[in-house]
């Protein structure tokens, strides 16, 4: 099965890659969009004073 990797996806904000699999006829059999990034704002915003979030989350 032929495989096309688009790594990284460009001209957007964030990280991503796409893996495309082609069947014997050159048609797309399946495609996977992957986000190879996590920073965990959901977790580390815990414990911060609520008014400070206005200064923390603009950096998402």
């Amino acid at each position, binding site marked *: 099965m032929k495989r096309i990797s688009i790594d990284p996806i*460009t001209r957007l*904000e*964030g990280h991503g890659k796409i893996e495309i699999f082609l069947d014997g006829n050159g048609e797309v059999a*399946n495609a996977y969009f*992957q986000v190879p990034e996590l920073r965990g704002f*959901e*977790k580390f915003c815990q*414990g911060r004073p609520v*008014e400070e979030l206005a200064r923390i989350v603009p*950096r998402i």
Partner: protein
Amino acid sequence: MSKPKVAIYWSAACGGCDVKVLDTNEKILEVAAAVDLVLWPIALDFKYKDVEAMADREIDLCIINGGVRNSEQEHIVKLLRRKSKVVAALGACAISGGIPALANLFDAQSILDYVYHKTASIDNPQGAVPQPEYDAPEGKLSIPKFFESVFALDQIIDVQYFIPGCPPPPSLIAKALVAFIQGTLPPPPATVAGDGSVCDECPRERKREAKVKKWKRISQFTPPADTKKCLLDEGFLCLGPVTQAGCEALCPKANMPCEGCMGKAKGVIDKGAKIVSYIASLTDANTEEEAKAILKDVIDQVGLFYRFDLPKSLIKGRRKV
């Protein structure tokens, strides 16, 4: 003569640093005319395999923003280091971990558990979590390994220049790029910023005799009628005294205490320790009880004092047990 080659890359970042490169406005056109950009994911369509195909040290200047959070970022920054003559760290995340490094207060597993199973907005009935490798019917897929903690760039590779800020002021980015093009960058390692601390650039005036009767949270802020009044004198925890100059005191000028995004001022070993020291000397207390009352609203010290530099601080992060 061929133009110098410049690469711009982002690791664990928000994109704000890249936007500030664009915010150099017409300077970016001069830069684009003077150099060949060979990688810049936010703006141009070059792939990692294009970088891999280059000769070692083929890139003249590689500007990297973002800290190192996972195995892909480690791999790419090491690759770029090998392919580059000069590496510059752009912004707080690359220099000292930045805000994403507040994650170093938690272990990797608890972050993954919370993000994929417990947030209010999650919809994940299968309980799926990202796996470094996945056997899809069509072939093997892989994503990077999520590290235990965030690293500053120079904890992974050698870095020659540092352009601080969250985000860095476009004026400093332009200064660094113009110096690179003209061949006038200072001998490395060097920080491209202002002299002294944020206080040196701040138009507010500190009264030497002022003592704080009550430290206040920023939610209790009403801008002083007299905009010349020092925010510290008013009892707001401004980090100006320990923070590297170069931003022209942008936040204090806008009635917001400095949160320290430019990093440590010269001579500061540990930011938090230095902040504790000046809080102590400004606090107007004669007894422990008085001090406790005055300091009651100094909360989340780690989240403020080390907001941008946890991986480079003495405490580093959570205590490993």
